[in-house]
């Protein structure tokens, strides 16, 4: 029978934005707990706000739950409540089994002690002794791959080494419930892949709660998604639907965001799909559609250099198209320009496209247009934004 490893009922947690209020709340909590009572205030006072409100959740073996949400949505608070690092104001958390967590993994390591000493201490605290302790220390050493530094003081480690040791010491465990909080951006690519493998391996044997802003990581690891907004569960179900919802919200944020522009009145443009329909800002399109821009260039200096910039939801430029590369001479009579950008081979998410205009010699920055925001639908395969299809041809002969 697949029992509930974790059951959360009506969990609420409030915080205060004011330090004095927070301390006085803590003092009251301490006094109440000192006399065996629980303070369960249902109303907010002063600068308090609900970081979590009426959260209900059940986790069974085999569930790999990806928790998504914007900054301040309550993800870390939820994890800390589950890990018993903070006390909820209302509700109950029932845990059936051992819990391990990858939260602030290298925290608690002492700089003066060596990696080996720190790991041995951690092993002892985890209840290991004798052969079990030695094999734990050896396993951490092997996984961390920090070689001779393992016997050097922790304070002499690079930040990458600290993270490696922290991840290794925390992940060489066999819990029933594993909590992972934004920890996979550890070390170089090779080590990160190793971390993914370790987590995949762990998740086969237990239930996992995984918090990340990386949608690729969530898509890759999780079989269930939970979307939190302002401390409340908006969606709990299939991971693809949760990712879609998160993307929708990201796109909304991207649309509302004030973008940097320069003389935007010099240029106007439309984004079209499949050479036909001009799409409205924030519209959604499917993977593989042809897109392009129709640009009014009547107010620009002849032979200006035009660069189309494609950005992801975080605002990073992921691709550009540059007129200088093509080397077109502008005709004598003109008023608009069509730029065929090719197929939309992007992972699902929100993107925007804007134009940057430079003087013909490429020295002076003349204009940066308002961006057009659009969304791409479909299925997540990997964390990379650009996902080309290419052509895959099977042949009978070997070259």
């Amino acid at each position: 029978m697949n029992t509930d490893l974790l059951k959360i009922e009506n969990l609420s947690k409030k915080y205060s934005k004011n330090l004095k209020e927070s301390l006085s709340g803590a003092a009251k909590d301490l006094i109440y707990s000192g006399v065996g009572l629980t303070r369960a205030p249902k109303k907010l006072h002063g600068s308090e706000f609900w970081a979590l409100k009426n959260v209900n959740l059940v986790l069974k073996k085999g569930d790999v739950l990806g928790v998504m949400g914007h900054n301040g949505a309550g993800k870390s608070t939820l994890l800390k409540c589950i890990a018993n690092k903070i006390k909820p104001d209302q509700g109950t958390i029932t845990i059936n089994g051992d819990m391990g967590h990858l939260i602030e993994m290298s925290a608690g390591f002492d700089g003066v002690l060596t990696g080996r000493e720190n790991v041995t201490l951690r092993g002892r605290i985890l209840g290991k002794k004798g052969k079990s302790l030695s094999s734990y220390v050896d396993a951490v050493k092997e996984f961390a791959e920090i070689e001779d530094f393992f016997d050097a003081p922790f304070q002499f480690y690079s930040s990458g080494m600290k993270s490696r040791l922290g991840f290794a010491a925390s992940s060489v465990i066999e819990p029933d419930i594993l909590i992972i909080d934004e920890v996979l951006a550890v070390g170089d690519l090779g080590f990160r892949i190793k971390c993914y493998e370790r987590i995949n391996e762990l998740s086969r044997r237990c239930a996992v709660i995984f918090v990340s802003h990386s949608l690729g990581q969530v898509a890759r690891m999780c079989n269930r998604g939970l979307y939190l907004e302002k401390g409340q569960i908006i969606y709990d179900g299939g991971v693809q639907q949760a990712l879609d919802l998160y993307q929708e919200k990201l796109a909304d944020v991207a649309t509302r965001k004030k973008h940097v522009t320069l003389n935007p009145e010099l240029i106007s443009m439309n984004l079209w799909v499949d050479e036909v329909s001009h799409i409205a800002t924030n519209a959604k399109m499917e993977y593989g559609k042809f897109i392009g821009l129709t640009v009014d260039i009547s107010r620009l200096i002849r032979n200006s250099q035009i660069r189309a910039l494609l950005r992801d939801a975080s605002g990073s430029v992921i691709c550009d198209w540059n007129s200088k590369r093509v080397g077109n001479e502008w005709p004598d009579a003109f008023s608009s320009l069509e730029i065929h950008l090719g197929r939309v081979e992007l992972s699902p998410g929100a993107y925007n496209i804007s134009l940057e205009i430079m003087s013909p010699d490429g020295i002076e920055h003349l204009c940066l247009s308002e961006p057009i925001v659009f969304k791409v639908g479909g299925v997540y395969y990997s964390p990379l934004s650009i996902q080309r299809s290419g052509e895959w041809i099977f042949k009978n002969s070997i070259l």
Partner: protein
Amino acid sequence: MTSLFLSVNSGVELAKNSIKKQFRENLFGYLWVLFIPFIYAFCFLIVKQSINAGEGSSIHQEHMAVFRAFVGMSFLQLWIQLLQDTSQVIRKRKNFLRSLTIQLDPFFYSILFEILISLIIRMVLVYGAAMYFNFPIPKNVLDHLMLFGCAFLIVGSAFFIGMLILPWASLFGDFKRLISSSVMPLALLSPIFYEPVVNPASPLYWINLINPIAISSSIFCELLFRHEYLYLNSFFIWISLPIIFFFPLVKLLNKQLPIILERLG
């Protein structure tokens, strides 16, 4: 029982690492435990000899005064250190407490193991000083138990008070300041540089009755000097309190731990 064994085991490991750390961070390591009482006793000897010059006090009285200062300062130093360590344990170990699913028990045991070593060093010193000054070392078991009880009282009372103020000392930095500023007032209020007050008409007598340093150092010294027992009721109260309340306090503090960790950020 298993969890107690596990906590004690972890506490020993924590204590071992903490001792290693002290030796690596300090040139003299644990020798500091020896230095400070010697410095106090030495300074006191100079001051006392200068003040009493020509008053004709006997050598034995001189020895008693110096020994009392040595014992009193050793106990006071130990008491303050233990109070500071216990009341600051969450602040000092907050990163560790956050990164692992762990309760406070191992940290308390670790403090106790460390303090036990300090205590043994001090007791050896104190016995050595008693022999040096030719004070008769008791021959019966009861007297030795009382001397051991004085040491236990120092450890138990500091630990008990430290645990009581721990949640508040974790939230408010004032407690740390209060403890470090109370060394001198406690030294003045305890019979370290003067004989214990036995007159109930004196307010100092009543202060000494609730002052664990006064009780333990008075009993210790008077037992060796005159074979007298002072402040016995207070002695037994201070011995009982930590024994009765240790486990309930640990349980309560473990319950309060998430409240404190949350506020520590």
